[in-house]
Each structure stands twice: as structure tokens, then as C-alpha cells.
């Protein structure tokens, strides 16, 4: 099973766990399995259209899935997926 690293700010929606084992053949299905296990994460990760929020990046290992095959990026048994909240802002 693949593993998803839960970022610290979202752990309270996943019973304070730092990582979760998930099933799925690609990133989309792996994250859907995560949300199935912890439904409170849904609003934190997906927007109203069911797409991964604009301010969240997903990495497979050390690579941004945007440089791979986005949500269709293949997931293997040893894959580690990181959910990364954007850390950005500024005075305006």
C-alpha cells in the first residue's frame, strides 16, 4: 500500500496521524481512499468542484505531480505521497 504524509496543519482532521496507508493505482484514487478513511479531510483537500485545491501541492516522492501525470500519476506499493499546503502570502 502507498503512504500519504499528512501535513501538520491537517493532522487534526486525520486523528493526529502523520501518515496513512492508502489503496489506489494513481494519485487521485489514493487521495480518494484517504478521504474515505477520514471524511473531515475532504473540505481541506478538495474544492467545491472536487478538484485538488489550488493552494495544495502533491508530491510523489521528491517530484511534484504537475511534472509527472498530475492526478493520474501512477502509484506503486512503496510510493510516498506528500500533501503540501502552500506557504505564501504577503502584505498585498
Amino acid at each position: 500500500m502507498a503512504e500519504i504524509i499528512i501535513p501538520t496543519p491537517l493532522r487534526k482532521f486525520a486523528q493526529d496521524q502523520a501518515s496513512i496507508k492508502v489503496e489506489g493505482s494513481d494519485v487521485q484514487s489514493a487521495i480518494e481512499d484517504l478521504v474515505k478513511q477520514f471524511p473531515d479531510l475532504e473540505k481541506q483537500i478538495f474544492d467545491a468542484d472536487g478538484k485538488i485545491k489550488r493552494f495544495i501541492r502533491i508530491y510523489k516522492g521528491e517530484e511534484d505531480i504537475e511534472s509527472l501525470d498530475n492526478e493520474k500519476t501512477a502509484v506503486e506499493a512503496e510510493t510516498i505521497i506528500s500533501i503540501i499546503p502552500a506557504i505564501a502570502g504577503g502584505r498585498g
Partner: protein
Amino acid sequence: MKKQVIVDQETLASMHRHALSDFPNECVGFFFGEANGESKRIKEYTPLENSKEGDQRRRFEVHPKDYMAAEKYAVESDQKFLGVYHSHPEHPAEPSVHDLAQAVPFFSYIIASVSETKVQNTRSWQLNDQNEFEEEDIINE
């Protein structure tokens, strides 16, 4: 009880030096330590590179790999990843709409209002359950 962030004088002074050295650009860094109920105690901070492309006088951004490294460091050092500090050059230490749009739960957001020669003031903020920023006390020990 109001939320609070406890930070020792040397760590806060180091964040301030970072804010001054990066002026007129915005600086950014992370901090780590312990969380206990409504209280966080900062034990370490890490200055980061502002990776924002474009005008860094008004914006900051952290590279996702720096974020991943911070999560890893927190686990390895048996600390909690507590939040983010950044500066507002020539601007109040209050979160902007851009800060709010990209804020995440749990993290404390320490903002230093800074001019060329001094830090005007420093305030800390955290999202509440309504997704609004609430100020928290900074306890300087």
C-alpha cells in the same frame, strides 16, 4: 483562554534580524517546538529563502521542498512544526487578504512590521474554526 505563543528573547531577536536583513523584501521562516492545548512554545526557528518570483517586497512564498524538509525535521527532532513567521515591510503586522487566502489551520503566523532600521512591532495570528484570523498573545521570556 486566549491562544499564546511563548518565545525566548534570543529567538525573537533572531527573527527580527532576519526581517531587517531582508528589508525591503519580505522574509519568511518556520519555527518548531511544543504545543500544549492553546499554548505553543517555540524552541527553534529556521530562516528560509523567499522563493516568490516577482516582487518580494509585497509577497513571500516557500518552496514545497522546504516545506517537506520542515515536516521531516520536526519528526526527526521530536518537535512539533508550529508555524510560519514573515515580515511586512513598511506595513502593519496584520494578516492581509493574501495571507488569509493561503493560511492553514493550527499554524501560528507571526508577522513583524519592519522599516529599514527597526522592527515596529510583532504580532501572531491563528485561524479559528470559522477560517478567520484571531490574534494570539506573544509571551516573550
